[in-house]
């Protein structure tokens, strides 16, 4: 049985789609079978970031409504044969996602893939709650600023109450992915400090992704940053995050800081 990961944030534009694609491609490069599912019905994006926009025929909504088989809707990546995309519909409305339909699709994906990565839409409405519903673990994407942190806190509350895992009384594994971290702004004190974000959210950190032009360049050529430029700083941070997701324990360094002063933060209590 594969693991279902939801990539979620509450706030929009913080890097969920970028991270879903980058983590998916990083895990697939380890030889594991990965599907990235776009839950952002009506505002699909993942196909662009993964360079598959011209290959979308059927989508998640078609599968849920019985108009296409899952195998017809899945798109295999041209560069990585273990990486797949299940696109969202651009034309339908969010209400086309039914809880029963999503449940069936997730059950089937879990049987076939090692990792099912669900790219959640922003917000706390239906699309976001359906994306998290079947997750085994969550990647909470947060930018180091107050509104993003507060929205992430809210999402963590939903992960602990609105998911199947929570309803069964089990503990949802939650990981913090701090993205768009700008060492220069951190230096000037224009951003929340990593320690402060961790103190507020109190969930374990799986990575800090620096703000970088490499991310924009990758999305312009339609490739996850971990495929487009594996040696770039954001790609390396995503590779490490993927290894931590897979259970490895690695020290975390703050971009722009040479000292590995992270022992005390990484050793923090998990929530």
């Amino acid at each position: 049985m594969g693991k279902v990961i939801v990539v979620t944030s509450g706030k929009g534009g913080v890097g969920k789609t970028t991270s879903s694609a980058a983590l998916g491609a990083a895990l697939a490069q380890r030889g594991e079978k990965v599907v990235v599912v776009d839950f952002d019905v009506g505002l699909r994006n993942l196909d662009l970031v993964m360079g598959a926009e011209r290959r979308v025929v059927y989508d998640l909504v078609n599968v849920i409504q019985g108009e296409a088989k899952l195998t017809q809707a899945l798109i295999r990546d041209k560069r990585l044969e273990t990486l797949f995309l299940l696109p969202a519909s651009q034309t339908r409305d969010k209400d086309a996602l039914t809880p029963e339909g999503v449940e069936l699709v997730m059950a089937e994906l879990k049987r076939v893939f090692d990792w099912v990565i669900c790219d959640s839409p922003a917000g706390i409405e239906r699309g976001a709650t359906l994306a998290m519903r079947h997750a085994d673990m969550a990647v909470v994407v947060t930018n180091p600023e107050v509104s993003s942190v507060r929205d992430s806190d809210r999402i963590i509350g939903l992960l602990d109450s609105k998911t199947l895992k929570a309803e069964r009384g089990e503990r949802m594994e939650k990981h913090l992915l701090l993205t768009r971290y700008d060492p220069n702004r951190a230096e000037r004190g224009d951003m929340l400090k990593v320690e402060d974000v961790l103190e507020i959210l109190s969930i374990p950190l799986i990575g800090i992704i620096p703000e970088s032009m490499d991310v924009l360049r990758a999305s312009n050529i339609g490739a996850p940053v971990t495929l487009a430029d594996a040696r770039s700083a954001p790609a390396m941070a995503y590779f490490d995050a993927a290894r931590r997701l897979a259970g490895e324990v690695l020290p975390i360094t703050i971009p722009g800081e040479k000292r590995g002063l992270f022992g005390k933060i990484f050793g923090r209590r998990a929530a």
Partner: protein
Amino acid sequence: MTKVLTDARSIRIKGRSFLAVVLSPDLPFDDWLARLDDLASRSAGFFLGRPVVLDVTDLPIDRAQLKDLVGELAKRNVTIMGVEGARPSILGPGMPPALKGGRPVSDDAVAKEPIIELHNAPAKPVVESRPAPQSIIIREPVRSGQSVIFPEGDVTVIGSVASGAEIIAGGSIHIYGTLRGRAMAGSVGNAAARIFCRKLEAELLAIDGIYKMAEDMAPDLRGRSVQLWLEGESIMAEKLI
């Protein structure tokens, strides 16, 4: 204990009845309902599991109008646990009970009007015969958007209370972490209740209905370990070492 997800904006603290959300409609009701719908659409779970009191003080309405309004609210899944400020003549069978300050009006005040509860009214948050003091312990952080409502007694949180979260306790509140959201102690009328926290960054503090907003708090208390209590009508605060 009820731990429900609600939007903190929904709370309007009114006098000593803040255990429930108090809605004060104005005329014409159509306009008011439109605004309510707008607010509800912007805030998921606005009234979820939350007792709602309808305050109709000074509104020149008759029984039929009130009945319509209660019906309109029921359509929106808002269950009214009581009506405040209504003339006894417009209440009665088939209507929510009369309330005063979040507590039922004593029986003789409406002696001739039998009080009938809505059959699907939420569990009564009003403590009538108070049992032995109780307390609950929350062993995890209280997240933004969550409410811990425990009218029966004390609430202890091992962890922080986030900005946009709230703790409402009939007794005292103890936070072993940072209090960034709201804490309301003594919420069913207990002036002896206190609030303790390891680090004060609160948005709002209230004891027995008397409240203080963030900007009313002495700046030197921020970030400190603090206890708060009530003396007469004012909230007193003191650093704990």
